[in-house]
């Protein structure tokens, strides 16, 4: 079957694609209109089916922390210790990000929620925190 990639030729430049939806407090990725696969960040061509059908999609701000590590090596401007983690979003997307507020007895899988920094160019621009009920 022929699938035209004309839409990929016309796709928005990567620098103009939204990464964060501040109103929703969420990340913006894309969803393929053909096969339904989500990506983060947004893609011009679906990595799953190869169609040029991804459309921008706001992702769920809540997900599941599946693993994490506390880093003890300084990486300016980051001062150790800081915690990195891997979060699965309900859309099936994996996101690597900073994690804050983990307690010593927290065990994965752990429900976490996205937090956005005040400005897009803050380091890091977003992170996840445990959902405390």
């Amino acid at each position, binding site marked *: 079957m022929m699938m035209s990639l004309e839409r990929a030729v016309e796709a928005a430049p990567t620098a103009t694609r939204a990464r964060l939806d501040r109103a929703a407090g969420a990340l913006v990725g894309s969803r393929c209109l053909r096969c339904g696969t989500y990506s983060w*960040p947004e893609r011009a061509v679906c990595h799953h089916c190869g169609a040029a059908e991804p459309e921008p999609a706001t992702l769920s701000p809540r997900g599941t922390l599946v*693993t994490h590590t*506390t880093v003890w090596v300084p990486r300016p401007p980051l001062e150790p210790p800081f915690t990195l983690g891997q979060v699965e979003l309900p859309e099936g997307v*994996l996101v690597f990000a900073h994690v804050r507020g983990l307690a010593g007895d927290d065990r994965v899988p752990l429900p976490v929620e996205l937090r956005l920094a005040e400005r897009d160019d803050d380091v*890091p621009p977003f992170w996840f925190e445990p959902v405390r009920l």
Partner: protein
Amino acid sequence: MTAVEVAGVGMHPFGRFEDRSLKDLARVAVARAVDDAGIAIADLDAVYSANGMAGLLQGQEQIRGQAALRDVGIERVPVVNVDNACAGGSSAFREAALAIRAGAADTVLAVGFEKMFVGDRDRSLAALETAADIEIVGGLGLQFTAIYAMRLRKRIDAGLLAEDDLVAVAVKSRRNGALNPNAQRQEAVSAAEVRAARPIADPLTLLMCSSFCDGAAAAILRRVEGAATGNGRPRVLLRASAAVSGFTAGAAEEEPTATVCAAKAYAEAGVGPEEIGVAEVHDAMAPGELIYYEQLGFCEPGGAGELLASGATAIGGRLPVNPSGGLCSRGHPVGATGLAQIAEVVWHLRGEAGDRQGAGRPRLGLTQNSGGWLTGEPAACNVQILEGVG
């Protein structure tokens, strides 16, 4: 298919060599490989040259191979510069093999060199972090130590690995490195020392991790004419050379990059993992070896700790893994690593590995070299299978 042999290998020892330039490192590895093959520089038809960070760390970009290899008299023949992060060396090796199989060359040099000690830790760490999609990782401070740490933590939490296994494999790595005159780390360490070393990214401690490293490694690949029998010295044939790139990992379980790549290599060679008699795998952090036991089919999921404890993967076992000390102890000068793995396996297949030679000469050896990082999976992976004949 055209038969290809690894006719010669050579290394510049791995370690900290502040007085040596990229040219010095490459020169020693190439001269040793050329002499080992019993050929002359003038016999080379083509060169594939691997380096990861000379552009960022030495300012030598764009024609890194042509520049580095002038000192050893390599001119005129085509030199192709190869990157692929930590998998650069094996990528250059594979391209060299493909050039021979394609009929474009008979005798080809694959060389990798790297110089990571530049007197500025932050600059070297920043250079290493570029082995990822920088649009994704920019500002995260996501080092490879953390990536390995998260992979290991996930397995520990799933009950597939124990923290003691991580310690035990680091002890094995250093014990092997202590037998390797080309290794960066040549001191054995105890389990207590590994546990007590300062934390890097939990559960990893300093003694489980490779560090910055300078070094070079080279291999001469050659078309095999006639019967591939040894002539007093075993010949080493390339039985398989497989490559894959990483992918966007999602929440759904998918076969890891190394498993997919190894399956291609096993199919090409017509052998299974149970036939491999020596392996060099990509353990930038020593416990990575345990992950690759599973991903390369050396054990079932969850069986890595048991395989290690059985002694099967120690020198003298039925499948020595990383007898060189691996990346963790031999050292990991990024662009050179894949070719140092090849050199180590060639020495074992020939029976020339000295104190690291196990019981007898294995017939089949495997190398697995991964590079870079794409959302949870290595960006590049190469698996080679070599056979000693005669």
